[in-house]
């Protein structure tokens, strides 16, 4: 005889979700999280901006203009009022004329109400090569007359358009930051996991390595390692290498935390159960133990990204890292690190706002992911 067990009738109502995959469940839970969705959209937008920087930027970010040094931000007027009293839809900005005091070298801008600079969607502007390959010259928004310029968020000390620069900066900051973080994440998880799971000699060894890396202050490491890089690498390659170096330093923190958690976790019955299920070590570590740390991991990743973006500024402070003509948010912020910018051109801090926005968006995205992966939260509405 086979045991016949009657089933609780209350549980029989099933929904399609009952057979959705776990990923789908997470996705469903995530979608319900409005702020996280907003965050995700903003992050995607940032990547979109990074990918299509050339088109989205109104101008060549390196195009200097001696007449527009520290040009303040301008407002776009959508409606053009004609002198005869009529109006039409024609986005434009009012031109400013610059005058430089020959002694103090102070530039003052005065509005020239008669000169309007008309803007054009997908107009022709500075030519460029999209992703360095496809030659193009259309920009999302640019001036009708290619000789004219407008500055939505102002210009820098060489009269370069800050908006274009910030947009170009997105590309490097959002990519190299992420690469660095992922690298240190992978290293941290693997080595921390192994160390915490095995304990004993492996643990001892890994921990000593971690301690070694941690105990050395970062600045000498940066200085020393960047010295080891060939001097004639292109600045971008060099920075990429330094990012790798940064993450080689940064993984230790995560590794130690992961290990701490693992030492506690591995005594849990469910870990033993997983071992007995015949899981390989990797599977025990990554499939069974790691999810318990998901919150922590997500939190530290969202925290590490701004740190990476910012680390670049510290590096440029030391004359390492990314340096002009490469454009990244860090470089832009470093360029703004002076009294002059604070006093006379606060718009140079726009990249800082971009960092903040990106970081906040990433964080809310992370929150959403965390919650979506949390079984307690997933269940509730």
């Amino acid at each position, binding site marked *: 005889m086979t045991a016949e067990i009657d089933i609780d009738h209350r549980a029989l109502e099933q929904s399609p979700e009952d057979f959705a995959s776990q990923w789908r469940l997470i996705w469903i839970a995530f979608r319900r999280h409005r702020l996280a969705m907003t965050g995700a959209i903003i992050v995607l937008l940032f990547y979109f901006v990074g990918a299509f920087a050339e088109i989205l930027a109104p101008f060549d970010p*390196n195009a*200097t*203009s*001696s007449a527009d*040094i520290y040009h303040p931000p301008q407002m776009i007027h959508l409606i053009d009022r004609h002198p005869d009293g009529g109006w039409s839809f024609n986005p434009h900005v009012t031109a400013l004329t610059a005058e*430089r*005091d*020959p*002694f*103090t*070298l*102070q*530039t003052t801008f005065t509005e020239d109400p008669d000169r309007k600079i008309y803007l054009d969607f997908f107009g022709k502007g500075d030519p460029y090569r999209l992703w360095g390959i496809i030659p193009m010259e259309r920009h999302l928004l640019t001036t009708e007359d290619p000789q004219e310029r407008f500055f939505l968020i102002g210009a820098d*000390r*060489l*009269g370069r358009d800050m908006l274009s620069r910030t947009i170009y900066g997105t590309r490097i900051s959002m990519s190299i930051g992420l690469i660095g973080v992922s690298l240190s994440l992978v290293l941290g998880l693997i080595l921390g996991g192994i160390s915490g799971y095995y304990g004993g000699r492996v643990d001892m060894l890994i921990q000593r390595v971690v301690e070694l890396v941690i105990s050395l202050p970062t600045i000498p490491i940066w200085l020393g390692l*960047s*010295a080891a890089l060939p*001097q*004639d690498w*292109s*600045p971008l390659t060099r920075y990429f290498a330094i990012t790798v170096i940064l993450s080689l330093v940064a993984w230790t923190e995560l590794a130690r935390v992961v290990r701490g958690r693992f030492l506690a976790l591995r005594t849990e019955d469910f870990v033993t159960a997983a071992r007995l299920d015949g899981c390989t070590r990797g599977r025990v570590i990554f499939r069974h133990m790691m999810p318990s740390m998901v919150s922590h991991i997500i939190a530290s990743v969202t925290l590490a990204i701004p740190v990476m973006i910012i680390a670049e500024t510290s590096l440029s402070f*030391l*004359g*390492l890292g990314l*340096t*002009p*003509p490469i454009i990244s948010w860090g470089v832009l912020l470093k360029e703004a*690190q*002076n*009294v*002059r910018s604070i*006093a*006379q051109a606060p718009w140079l801090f726009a990249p800082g706002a971009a960092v903040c926005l990106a970081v906040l968006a990433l964080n809310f995205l992370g929150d959403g992911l965390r919650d979506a992966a949390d079984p307690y939260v997933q269940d509730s509405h």
Partner: protein
Amino acid sequence: LPAVAQEATGQAPSLAAMVEAGSLPPVAERVGEEPEVVEPLNAIGTYGGDLRIGLRGSSDHNHILRVVGPQGLVRWDPQYTEIVPNVAERFEVEDGGRVFTFYLRDGMKWSDGEPFTADDVLFNIDDLVLNEEFAPTPPRYTSGGEPMQVEKVDDYTVRFTFKEPYGDFLAELASPLGQHPVLYAKHYCSQFLPTYNDNVDELIAKNEATDWQNLFLQKCGDLEIPARWGNPERPTLDPWVIKEPYVGGTTRVVLERNPYFWQIDTEGNQLPYIDQIVAPIDQDVESLILGVIGGRIDFGLRHIDPPANRPVLAENREKGDYHFFAAEPPGGSNMIINLNLTHKDPDLRELFNRKDFRVALSLGMDRQEIIDTVMLGEGEPWQHGPFEDHPYYHEQTAKQFLEHDPEQANALLDGLGLERGPDGVRQMPNGEPVRFQVDVIPTFDPVWVDALQLVEQQWAELGVDMEINPMERTFFYERTSNSNDHDAAVWNAKQSWVAGQIPQMLVPVHHDSRYGIAWRDWYLSGGESGEEPPASIKERLRLYDEARGMTDPEERRKTMLEIAQIAADEFEVIGVAKAIPTYGIVKNDLMNVPEKMPSSWYYATPSPTLPQTWFWKDE
């Protein structure tokens, strides 16, 4: 006017009180029988107050030096045209520039009251400068391969003798690097020498020094090291002496008046007027600027003078209660591009050594645009060399190939057989693109990288692919000045070629001669290492050696111009813009500060304008 005729009568109230109390001899005794009488710039001053300057981190010891003054045997006059006596009361040049006799001031004292005599000079030269165990003899004290001889004629007269004529010697002595003969007080510093003190080992141990040289440096310092300001006990001849020393980790340095200072004003008041120099240490330039704005700094030039800071400083003039004074460079250019003419890569070397190539690059630069964009419109196109109103002015050096003429530049490049490749970049005969990196230190002068970015675009039009290679400064030094691994490098060339200044853009004699480091090595090593330079360079080196020996200024000028002519014809370095005056700030109430002064290391701005005569207007 005869110094002896003047009697010192006035002194600072604090000193007067000490004299009263008997702890200090009277002022006339202190300044000696032959004090230097100085005519203050505008007015006789009053005593009191502090002068606050802003030091930047460590290694800013020369900032102190520039305010206190090198106080060598001679010094430059405020206009930087003539050498006048300083510690020496007068001097004579004899034997065609081979013998120099200095007459010291009778009764002059070190800052601790001990007399200053010819013995001190002999101690400095024989026991230290010529003592190979202490340090090698600087080349400025040798001629014809032999060190100078010093003898004591009497207590207050010393005589220097050289093998060959050495006309530049006085200028060398006037520079901050030529202070050696009167740097150390024998009665104090001799205790750290094994020849004078048998128990020097005890002192070494007591001070945790590594050897007597280290001990000596710790206690008595040296010309250009911070330790010079690290020991309040060390007697000096300076107007102010160290009170709170400049040692590692300190946050401010204070100097107080030297009660035995040997200068008086025309009314007989002992200088300096100002009681103390107070120099808090900031690490970052920006905080120095904030210091200026906030009124925490009374006199500032060093570190804060890049034109980029001027609008902010100007805007806050009222708030900070200061005004500007002009600091004029002696000449030259503040940005110069050196192609490496001794490049290790034969192809690039070949290319760089073609004058047409260099001319093309120069013509391809739109200097006016660079000046307008990067330098806030300050300056004018310029290659290098002294300005128009200078006796050493050489027009061709300064003004050739300045016009922006891409057509001609392209024609020249075509003429060199550099065909454009498919991507618009020209190719060398071996098929390699014409591509090179320009090394630059971004933290050094921010203008450089900005300007290079424009140059990069302008040269790209010519089909020349230049890459900017920013790097940290020691890397830069190592690469461009020592190992000679650079393609090209940027530096400044603020100089006129007067005696004392090294014309490194005319002759490869200095590590800043980045167009010919291998030649420089050859020259400095006497042909042992490095690479033998071409005839044109050799000729210039020969002429340069000659010029340095000349005592007649006019003759020297001619020779230098001859060198300049050769260099101009070769056209080795490419300048960008004329070094225009920068501006320093000075508090409105600080008197006797000139409205403009030369700005140069050899002049040691502002010390020849005599800060000891500056004073605070009473309110």
